[in-house]
């Protein structure tokens, strides 16, 4: 359950083991451990500042950890790991940027290479296949900057998938999406995970849109994590321990709400390191 280290026993595609990150005296991540198995859909849930992006950057090799290690497919992770596909958080393309959706997907295949791309039938077929996998054919030839947020996300997912990764990391892909678009993206990701056996690790500050498909959860509060299945983690006792004070997990109309527990001073929540606010729904 909490602090599970899935490095050895199962053939984890990602094993995060005791990762601690200290930046200018502040601990951003504290002894975070969890594992992700092939085809598994894992949600990395936490409020702003909980350490989600830092954790993803550590996994990507863009941020060094102070302690602990990250194994990708059993090996220490390195920069430019072709086993990891990545969809970054803020992605704002100017509508004037002369790049079609299919060009962006193509850059996922060979964007890191030097020199001018050589068009080939195989390359084109692969790009078409990826565009089809994310239902992006209707706007394949449109400028990426003119697409809607949900459409851009789908193109970015195709961009990340084309190098055939074993693990797909997505940083807040649902932020700024309206509900139907978010549901569409989540359904698409679940399909990719089950059909292609790709493990998906997706960060979000809201767990509810992910509940229908999320098999495992990594719940981050103030840099510390609890991980396991949703049933194991999203419980009053586990989250109270993680938040360091009494919280309550409520199930209402199929939604999960995490609220400050009885007897907690609502205003005190603001003073804690956690984001918990009484009555206001944390999750």
């Amino acid at each position, binding site marked *: 359950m909490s602090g599970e280290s899935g490095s050895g026993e199962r053939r984890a595609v990602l094993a995060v083991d005791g990762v601690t990150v200290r930046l200018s005296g502040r601990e951003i991540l504290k002894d975070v451990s969890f594992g992700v198995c092939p085809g598994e859909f894992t949600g990395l849930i936490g409020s702003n500042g909980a350490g989600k992006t830092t954790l993803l950057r550590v996994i990507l090799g863009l941020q060094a950890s102070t302690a602990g290690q990250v194994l990708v497919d059993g090996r220490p992770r390195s920069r430019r790991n072709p086993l*990891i596909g990545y969809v970054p958080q803020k992605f704002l393309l100017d509508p004037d940027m002369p*790049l079609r959706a299919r060009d962006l997907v193509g850059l996922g295949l060979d*964007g*890191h290479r030097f*020199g001018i791309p050589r068009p080939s039938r195989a390359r084109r077929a692969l790009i078409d296949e990826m565009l089809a996998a994310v239902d992006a054919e209707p706007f394949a030839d449109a400028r990426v900057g003119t697409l809607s947020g949900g459409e851009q996300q789908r193109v970015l997912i195709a961009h990340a998938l084309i190098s055939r990764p074993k693990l797909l990391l997505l940083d807040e892909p649902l932020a700024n999406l309206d509900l139907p*678009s978010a549901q569409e993206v989540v359904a698409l990701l679940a399909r990719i995970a089950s059909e292609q056996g790709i493990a998906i690790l997706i960060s979000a500050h809201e767990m509810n849109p992910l509940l229908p498909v999320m098999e495992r959860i990594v719940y981050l509060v103030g840099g510390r994590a609890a991980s396991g299945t949703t049933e194991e983690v999203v419980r009053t006792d586990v989250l109270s321990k993680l938040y360091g004070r009494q919280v309550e997990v409520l199930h209402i109309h199929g939604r999960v709400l995490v609220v400050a527990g009885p007897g907690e001073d609502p205003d005190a929540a603001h003073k804690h390191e956690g984001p918990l606010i009484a009555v206001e729904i944390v999750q």
Partner: protein
Amino acid sequence: MSQVFGAVFAPGFFASTQVQVAVVVGTMVAVVASAVGVFTVIRGQSFAGEALGDIGTTGGSGAFLVGAGPLWGFLAISIVAAAAMELIGIQRPRGRDLATGIVLGAGLGLAALLLYFDATYHNKTGATVTILFGSIFLIPSSTLPLVVLLSAIVLAIVAVLYRPLLLSSMSTELAAARGIPVRPVGALYLLALAIAVALASVTIGTILSTALLVGPAAAALRLTRRPATAMLAAALIGIGAMWLGIVLAYDSYDWPPIHDGWPVSFFVVTIIFVLYLLAGVPGLWRARQRRRADATTGGPLIAERR
């Protein structure tokens, strides 16, 4: 037919060595400027390009003082300034503008002094106009090999960096995650920009060099959806403006008020500006078509935008 030909190309046009050198240099510079310019526009570094051009004034006026070719002066100062910008912190957009402004201010102050020396001490009154606004007909043919070499270097850099530069122009995070050395790639591109600006300065002057760099690229980006096509279109626009400018400038030797020829830079920049405006027409037309289509289908589908 031959009358029309004679009216367009003034007598002696094709025999003139100055014209020949101008056409060769102008063509090469237009190609180089378009290749770099597309990335300059995409990366939003037009201000950096402008600054590198302006600060070339310092190098050009210094070169005049010591009797060297202005291209050497443009080149040296532009590369030094680019390195300074890179070191001060061009990586972050805000730091970028600040660093550019600081370096620019310092350089232009020096240029004021050097131009003053050129004009008074050395009595080279033409230096100021030549440096600031260029004079493509004054390029000695001995400069050609250097222009060819520099053009080749810039085109090689752009060709080699093409994909990583494209990816890091879109998202540095995405590029870094793919293992692209974002900072060295950016620095090398800045070097290409510095050289391209120096080349453009020789043809149409330091002040106007950005027009050649950014103008055709911006016009091309309005017309096409692909970066490589944009470079090609920009090159055609740049070459067209350059050639037409040279022809008109040569013709203008008979024009009032002084019958001594109008500056080439004026023609080149004006043509580029007109082409830029014209390049906007297809977009306007498409937008109008779309509005008309929306009106018939009962309103646009408003897509959420990030």
